């Protein structure tokens, strides 16, 4: 009796479907929804490390609103994201166009380009830390030996230099991803497109402008969305290189959140900063959702 009803349940498509979804749903809940929910909840408490918090409403946010360091971190995050993403897009597209040509050792070069992406971030960050070192910087050493400058550059010591330096390191790490994705996109464009354009009288620039760029635009949208999200939430690189310094000039929202929450012990406040990133990320995702909506020329079928 019991076994028969169990068998009956399993024959039901909906029940079976639910059962199959269960493992996936469990993983999502345990590893995504719970931490996210916990973080948002913590943001409304005065939890400290080693002490459970009390609900204090939006006090953390009110306090952060007047916190100049928090405001600076928002500005830094935007500066970092916008400048790094623009440079990554430019360099990535240029590299992709180069790699798409018939070069000697083509596959070898493509593998080399991926290297910065493969190396663990912390490892490359440490390498950059050494490159930017105030006393032992290889860049400064070279420039001095070439007679271009007289004294060593304090890459990570001056606010704007530190910003530029961290952005440069982020670009170095992020370009391969953009370049390889765009290269994949370029390779989907049939060579006869360019032949047809050449016969139509298009110069190489006109071919790029009228054929390459429009046909690449769907992939550009996807890649740049990911690139912006990665950059906006970047943590490791800054933490290794500057820990947010000098004078908070390179503090991003992610690093500030960690600094307040873990070394600083103010879990609630750190969580509030992290939660404050969510609206910005949502905005970026919504922007790409509407930007990514399949263009009319990509839609199949007929419109009648």
């Amino acid at each position, binding site marked *: 009796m019991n076994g028969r009803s169990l068998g009956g349940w399993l024959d039901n498509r909906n029940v079976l479907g639910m059962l199959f979804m269960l493992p996936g749903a469990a993983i999502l809940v345990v590893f995504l929804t719970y931490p996210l929910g916990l973080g948002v909840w913590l943001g409304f408490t005065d939890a400290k490390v080693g002490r459970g918090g009390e609900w204090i409403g939006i006090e953390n946010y009110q306090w952060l609103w007047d916190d100049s360091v928090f405001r600076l971190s928002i500005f830094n995050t935007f500066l970092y994201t916008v400048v790094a993403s623009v440079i990554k897009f430019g360099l990535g597209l240029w590299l992709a166009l180069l790699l798409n040509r018939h070069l000697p050792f083509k596959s070898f070069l493509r593998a080399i380009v991926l290297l910065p992406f493969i190396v663990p971030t912390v490892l490359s960050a440490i390498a950059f830390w050494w490159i930017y070192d105030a006393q032992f910087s290889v860049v400064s050493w070279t420039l001095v030996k070439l007679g271009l400058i007289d004294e060593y550059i304090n890459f990570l010591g001056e606010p704007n230099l530190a910003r530029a330096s961290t952005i440069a390191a982020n670009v170095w790490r992020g370009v391969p991803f953009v370049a390889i994705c765009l290269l994949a996109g370029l390779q989907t464009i049939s060579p006869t497109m360019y032949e047809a354009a*050449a016969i*139509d*009288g298009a110069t190489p620039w006109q071919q790029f402008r009228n054929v390459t760029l429009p046909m690449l635009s769907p992939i550009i949208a996807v890649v740049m969305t990911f690139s912006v999200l990665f950059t906006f939430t970047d943590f490791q690189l800054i933490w290794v290189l500057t820990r947010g310094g000098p004078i908070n000039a390179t503090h991003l929202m992610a690093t500030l959140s960690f600094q307040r929450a873990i070394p600083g012990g103010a879990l609630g406040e750190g969580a509030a900063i992290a939660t404050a990133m969510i609206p910005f990320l949502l905005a970026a995702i919504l922007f790409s959702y509407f930007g990514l909506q399949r263009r009319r020329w*990509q839609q199949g079928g007929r419109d009648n």
Partner: protein
Amino acid sequence: MASVNLKKVRKTFGRTEVVHGVDIDIEDGEFVVLVGPSGCGKSTLLRMIAGLEEITSGEIHIGDLLVNTVAPKQRDIAMVFQNYALYPHMTVFENMAFSMKLAGRGKREQRERVDEAARILGLEGYLDRYPRQLSGGQRQRVAMGRAIVRDPQVFLFDEPLSNLDAKLRVQMRTEIRELHQRLKTTSIYVTHDQIEAMTMADKIVVMNGGHVEQIGSPLELYDFPANLFVAGFIGSPAMNFLEGTLVTTSTGRGVRIAPDCVVSIESQQPDGHQVVLGVRPEHLVIKESHTDAGMANDTAGIEAEVIVTEPTGADTQVFCRVAGKELVAISRQRHLFSPGTRIRLEAQARHTCLFDSDTGQRL
């Protein structure tokens, strides 16, 4: 419009030569079809005329202009690609107007010429659509429209119909032909389909292995093929080939294809010459089955054993075996032989072709 002249044109990719010195003269307004099996160099030749491939040596003239080093856009040609190569992100109008837009022509002129081309091709209602929203045949027409609006000296077609289904292919064949009769623009058309070549061409160039095998009008090639390759390539079902020796019998000249079988032919070649006898299927006349004794006495007939009979409605194809070789005969009569039936075939002597079996050239 212009003539196109190819002089000793060669093409090598690395160390492999794929086109071995080709001479073709195409007159103003002619519709020329380059036909041959895949890999024969016909597409490469077309791409050299278009300027998409470099010319290794030789000369290509379009009109009076030597175009060897001239860029594609200055050759005043238009090309229709096998996969149409329409720009997917542009509407039909934008696709057709693209070359004029690049050339900086005015909006009004663009509109007028695209409308004119759309009218000719029956695309009036589709100008705002994207290529994705069109059927294969419509895309094909847009590709042609893109060529027409430029009013070029020469149209180049690179297997434009091979992506279409059989019925549409026949229809587009006629349309392209009509278009040519209306515009009278010199056209060079590449295909591997000999039926397309036969039905469309003013002049066919048969290519094989990077060489030109023969140039001539469709019926010239059909009736007087220069060699075994052309004879076998042009015509469907293909020409029947029978190997044998030239002999003289009491009834006249003939080819001995088996110890007891001689086919009458007309030839001035000496006896004993090794030849290949070519007979088109429709020139094999089927004589109804006789008694064995009667057949043995008739030296003009070929004794054959029926393998398969295929009625197509309009005619009947009879596949049969003669001296270990398969032959096909086409008859307007509705024969229905059962397999194994012994029949007699008569080759019409004035329609047969003789080829040297060593060189493959026609005698």
